[in-house]
């Protein structure tokens, strides 16, 4: 009697296990399991672009997407390992502050594909890198900024002067100088990614000193511009819907080309260590200057023509925006 029960139990649990495994492998065959690990909330501009592209892939039915947000750098490696252990096909994230730990995890799980934001190089066989190389639209928005400024003073408020921020600020400044070589820049950093009240104070200080176009690298800057009736230039995301009379132009980052390429590779089993940086350029649709929207007609036609011509030159390769990762300074 007891034996029979035991036997039944064993068989049924085996059957259960087999049944449980079957649909899993069936799903795995067509849907890639993707996990993303973010050090900040998904509303943060930079991360929101990755989140958006992955959500899009999920709603197309291509992937099963899970994510962890607000993961501290100290915890980052643990969460990476957890997802790798769960057998995720692709792990997306940001390695900037955890380069060596992240690379170690990738070495330990060679069958998992890793696609991480990084200023470093890819690492064979499975650690690919990407970054927000959107200096091209940043240059174009700089042209708009200088053309729209009456005082010739542009204010820029950043979080920290890291390469991801610096290169966009420099491209923006280069673009502005092309329109008005005498334009003055004031630059300050607030030493935080998330302190909109402080970013707003920094912006107020610049507007008080005569800046009439603000480069909004952080949340809070456009708010100051709106309150004082000056203009702002958006970065990474399009905030014109929130500030229709303030944000004149925005340099957008589209993560879709990067994510979709990686997914295709994982699907085909050909994912390898590569630099995905180029998929953030305008040529690949990885970045663009947002449509002028509410500023259609407010930006002078001659300026629009110049920007369009430059856009074309960038796309056909006859003009290259310089990448400069050094810390920008006021002049």
């Amino acid at each position, binding site marked *: 009697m007891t034996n029979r029960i035991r036997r039944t139990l064993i068989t049924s649990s085996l059957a259960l296990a087999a049944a449980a495994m079957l649909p899993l492998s069936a799903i795995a065959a067509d849907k890639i399991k993707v996990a993303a690990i973010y050090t900040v*909330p998904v*509303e943060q501009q930079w991360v929101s672009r990755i989140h958006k592209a992955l959500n899009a892939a999920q709603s197309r039915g291509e992937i099963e997407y899970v994510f962890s947000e607000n993961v501290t750098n100290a915890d980052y490696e643990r969460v990476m390992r957890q997802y790798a252990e769960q057998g995720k096909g692709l792990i997306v994230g940001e390695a900037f502050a955890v380069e060596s730990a992240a690379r170690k995890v990738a070495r330990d799980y060679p069958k998992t594909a890793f696609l991480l934001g990084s200023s470093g190089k890819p690492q064979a066989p499975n650690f690919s890198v990407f970054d927000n190389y959107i200096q091209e639209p940043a240059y174009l928005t700089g042209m708009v900024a200088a053309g729209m400024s009456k005082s010739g003073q542009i204010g820029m408020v950043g979080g920290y002067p890291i390469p991801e921020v610096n290169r966009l600020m420099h491209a923006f400044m280069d673009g502005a100088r092309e329109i008005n070589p005498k334009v003055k820049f004031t630059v300050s*950093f607030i030493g935080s*990614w998330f302190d909109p*009240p402080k970013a*707003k104070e*920094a912006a107020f200080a610049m507007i008080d000193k005569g800046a009439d176009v603000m480069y909004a690298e952080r949340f809070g800057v456009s708010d100051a511009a709106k309150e004082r009736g000056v203009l702002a230039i958006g970065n990474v995301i399009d905030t014109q819907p*929130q500030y229709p009379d303030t944000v004149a132009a925005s340099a957008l980052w589209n993560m879709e080309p990067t994510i979709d390429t990686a997914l295709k590779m994982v699907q085909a089993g050909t994912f390898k260590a590569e630099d995905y940086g180029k998929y953030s350029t305008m040529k690949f649709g990885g970045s663009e200057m947002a449509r002028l929207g509410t500023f259609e007609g407010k930006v002078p036609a001659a300026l629009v023509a110049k920007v369009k011509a430059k856009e074309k030159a960038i796309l056909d390769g006859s003009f290259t925006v310089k990448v400069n990762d050094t810390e920008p300074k006021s002049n």
Partner: protein
Amino acid sequence: MMDFLTTLFDMLGSASFWVATLRVATPLILGTLGVLICERAGVLNLGIEGIMVAGAFTGWLAVFNGADLWTGVLVAGLVGGAFGLLHAVLTVWLTVSQHVAGLGVTLLATSLSAFAYRVSFPQVSTPPTIEAFAPLESLADLPLIGPVLAGQTSLTLLAIALVPAIAYLLYRTPMGLALRMVGENPAAAEGQGVDVIAVRTGAVIAGSMLMGLAGAFLTLSAFNAFFFNMINGRGWICVALVVFASWRPGKALLGAVLFAAFDAAQLRLQQAGGVLPYQIYLMLPYLLSILALIVMARRAAYPQALMKPYRKGER
């Protein structure tokens, strides 16, 4: 050097600098008063950083869900008070370590706010906003301080008005006397028929309500949206400012305004450019505050029973 000095004098003479200073100071004034009330009763409240997060979040959430701004302020105060009650239960009733309990409250309040935020807003691409308090433009006609006050909102005026109010309560009322007594010598207070546990509990709750308001200022006045990390250490600064203030409300106001002035100044000096790395400017308010602390805190008379739990009947 001359350039620098002209910049400095221009800055100190401009209304916009003082507008910014008061705006930056407001959460610090409220938070410092909150810490001061707790510590005057003998309880260190390191829950402040988290209570400010909770106040910032709940006040903002109430307004986002249709409440008016003052209801939002009230909600932030009540939520602050609730966390204060938790801290009081832990430290005053159960007499656990005030440091550990306070840090625990900070972690709990911060994480709970983050959790509640994500549950309320699972799918947002940019943080939702509200219509925040507007500056009181009508005050612009007042002589001298008009332009400075006109840039402020009602919450800033409330914070400044609370300074003399709390000083009066502390030094001119029996309740204030009882509160100061339980922070100096709880056994003697008990001997006078004061219920030490009740007074300390009340003080921690009241102080924590002010911390909740301090947080709410950031989401209802200084800005119009909630971000996880937006308190950004302001709570810890309040804890230091109380020492600077020698546990006195008037000096607390002075300390908060001084720190805020340094911060407003560094933002202005930083953008003027120059050879110094930006980190030096960011460090300036903290550095100068430490120097001020050294000067001011030498003769600081701290509450004698601070951080000493009171157990009835124990000698």
